[in-house]
């Protein structure tokens, strides 16, 4: 059910600007909605992140993935079992930049016997890396529209990205890989029975949204051309807070911009917040140094315990019988 609901939701999201971005409607889709979306994104992101940050971490519970730092002659694993903040930074960097935990992924196979096999399974890791990094590249390439003069690194990135020199304008590999990766992430969700079983509308919706976003971008660049100078004028107007809508920008641009607006406004209230959340994860962002440095639980409270003297009161005679020392005779 979730897959269809999400699919049609995105179709509707495409139809809305298609119909609406005419005449004065262009002010709504070109100026008002993007501003609102950015505002919602910023406020929402800050709200969610602050909520996490304000929630206490009562216990230091890193998941240890390697040998702890103990006796000096025992080789420890500072990356998977950090004993200090430097180690934590390295561990987090690998997690965030290289998806290290996902790299461990394996696939289980049950054979006759029974015999269990754990084959290495890097597809999800590769697709996830491809998806996130190409998204970043595409994002940076858009700086061409945000900045005047265009920074040098954008041109450099474009020449690397378009090194295949296919098509006119040149095909950017990043867009294609991004689209393929998003399609892969979608296909595995419907093709793997367990994944299909756990998937919610909230899992399909952002994928369709991104597929729509990337597709409209590709369409605009290669097939349904829009006047890029006017587009830049509009965007520069937005970023310099002197918004204007030049004449003659094709509707495909407004579809693209609207899908982006929906995506960023949806971001803080969805699973996409994993991007911020991963930094707060107490199983990853804490050193395994409890035995060296006491971790304080801010809401630690006194509890009722069974004291030694209560214990001795219960068992004194029996203790004396076998010669166990007692406090009170």
């Amino acid at each position, binding site marked *: 059910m979730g897959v269809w*609901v999400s699919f049609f939701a995105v179709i509707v999201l495409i139809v809305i600007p298609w119909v609406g971005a005419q005449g004065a409607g262009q002010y709504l889709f070109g100026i008002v909605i993007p501003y609102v979306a950015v505002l919602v994104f910023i406020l929402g992101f800050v709200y969610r992140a602050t909520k*996490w940050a304000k929630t*206490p*971490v*009562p*216990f230091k*519970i890193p*998941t*240890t*993935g*390697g040998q*702890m*730092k*103990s*006796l000096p*002659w*025992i080789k*420890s*694993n500072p990356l*998977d079992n950090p004993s200090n903040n430097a180690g934590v930074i390295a561990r987090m960097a690998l997690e965030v930049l290289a998806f290290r935990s*996902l790299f*461990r992924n394996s696939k289980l196979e*049950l054979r006759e016997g*029974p*015999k*269990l096999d*754990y084959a290495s399974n890097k597809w*999800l890791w590769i697709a*996830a890396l491809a998806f996130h990094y190409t998204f970043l590249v595409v994002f940076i390439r858009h700086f061409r529209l945000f900045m005047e003069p265009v920074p040098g690194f954008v041109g450099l990135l474009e020449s690397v990205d378009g090194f295949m020199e296919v098509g006119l304008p040149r095909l950017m590999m990043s867009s294609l890989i991004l689209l393929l990766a998003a399609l892969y992430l979608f296909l595995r969700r419907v093709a793997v*029975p*367990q*994944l*299909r*079983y*756990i998937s919610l*509308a*909230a*899992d399909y919706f952002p994928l369709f949204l991104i597929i729509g976003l990337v597709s409209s971008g590709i369409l605009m660049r290669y097939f349904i051309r829009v006047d890029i100078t006017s587009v830049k004028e509009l965007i520069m107007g937005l970023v310099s807070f002197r918004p204007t809508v030049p004449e003659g920008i094709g509707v495909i641009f407004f579809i693209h911009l609207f899908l982006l607006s929906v995506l960023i406004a949806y971001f803080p209230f969805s*699973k996409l*917040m*994993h991007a911020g959340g*991963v930094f*707060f*994860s*107490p*199983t990853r962002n804490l050193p395994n140094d*409890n*035995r060296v440095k*006491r971790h304080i*639980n801010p809401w*630690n409270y006194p*509890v*009722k315990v*069974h004291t*030694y003297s209560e*214990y001795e009161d219960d*068992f004194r005679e029996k203790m004396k019988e*076998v010669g*166990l*020392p007692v406090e009170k005779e």
Partner: protein
Amino acid sequence: MAKVGSPEELARIDYSPPKKSWMDIPPEFREGRWCYGSKAKDHAVVGLPNPRAWSPADEDWKLPDNWKEIFLEGMRERLHKYRSFQLFMDICVRCGACADKCHFFIGSGDPKNMPVLRAELLRSIYRGEFTTAGKIMGKLAGGRKLTYDVFKELFYYFFQCTECRRCSLFCPYGIDTAEVTMIGRELLNLLGCNIDWITGPVANCYRTGNHLGIQPHAYHSMLEFFCEEIEEITGILPEPSFNRKGAEILFITPSGDVFADPGTFTAMGYIMLFHYLEGLGLDLTWSTYASEGGNFGFFTSHEMAKRLNAKMYAEAERLGVKFIIGGECGHMWRVCNQYMDTFWEPPKSLETPVSPITGTRFEHAKEHKMIHICEFTADLIKHGKLNLDPSRNDPYRVTFHDSCNTARGMGFFEEPRYVLENIVNHFHEMPESTIREQTFCCGSGSGLNTDEFMDMRMRGALPRANAVQYVHDRHDVNLLSCICAIDRATLTTLTEYWVPDVEVSGVHELLGNALILEGEKKRTMNLRGEEFPWVEEEEEEEVEEAAEEVADEEAAGKAEGEE
């Protein structure tokens, strides 16, 4: 004991999920997959809510009228108190990397045993009861309301998770199902829904100091009995001390080790090691009050964990010791490593642990003041302080099971292996994806090691057993060693069912075999009282030699006569 099919039957596992959405499938309490309900008398001992006679098989669980309110209020409170819980409710993307990492999913194929779905059981309530989107859009936003059936479902599946954290290792955001299960169990406990196998030990531990309810005089005589056994084997009678003020070290180990085989052999190993070291300056006492290393409170709630854990530092302070040595135990070390010195400020009277034998300062425990027996022993071996004869363990071909808690809640891999290297001659590791940080649970941890749960236990045991089978087939491994008291009990059941030719032992049992005590008699048997296979041969040889000698003498006599 619940009926369990044959291994062949059990291994026919269907991984295909049902047609219906998981939200539409009510819980079905299948035989051998749930544990008996907690008893009113145990609730009374520690003041757990809602003491009553009930069974999870009953229609009516006798919950208070406002049960929903209590549950949701408890959930709200915990969302504010635990960043882990709030975050793990928020950020899962359902990528599925955790799905086939869980031993219970691998062994049962039940999709609600995929860590992601186990957490979604609670996450869906979070969305449905606490988030705007979930409240409005309901199922479409992955939300659902808390109902009686949903509550029962939570009970069923949170007591089908051993909090082993294997899934959290593979999660790209470190989402830890153990955290979710722990909080989930806390919520169930607010309404008095725990299992007998946990509340029983909790009540015992609170009153008598240990899970098994061993009273001080009995504890004392059980250890005395071990000493007599040791005397029979070695000719030497160790004399451990109890509750002794002024000792330098307090030793705390799980009570399982003094109660049942094969843990008892590990306890004998400890006693022998301490006896050996007395001559070198060890001044150590046991305690009948702090007579439990494990902590079934940890499987109940954070508060109960703290209440039961109190004894360790309290007893160390009362006796005036300088530091604590902890025995071989898994979840004990998770609590001791990650919780104890947050629960309690270590008493000022304790000092940074220093081995009285080698002078090694255990700087990595300088705040916490407690060291693991394996690091203590590894340091002794490293300094050449132990006189060892590994050949006494030659009948054993050994492998090592990392217990979940020392693996993923501590990172304690090399110390026990170093000890093993020095006390056995035949050692073989299981496959990489089943050991160290990727180790598989015994299938019975976190208080689920009870007989009525046997079907699920043997299913959960499959991945571990399969790895044991692998080294058994390839290297004739016949001994599965470990550093966990629950493992010593549960792996024995596991091997009996899946790999019958393999026995289970603690590391310090093997140390006890190898350790040469001063003035001991010639050893003819291991700590289990099993005669070494070469003893008979040697005896035969001796008899033959003696016979030869007699024959020689006779021949010589004859020759003399002839002369």
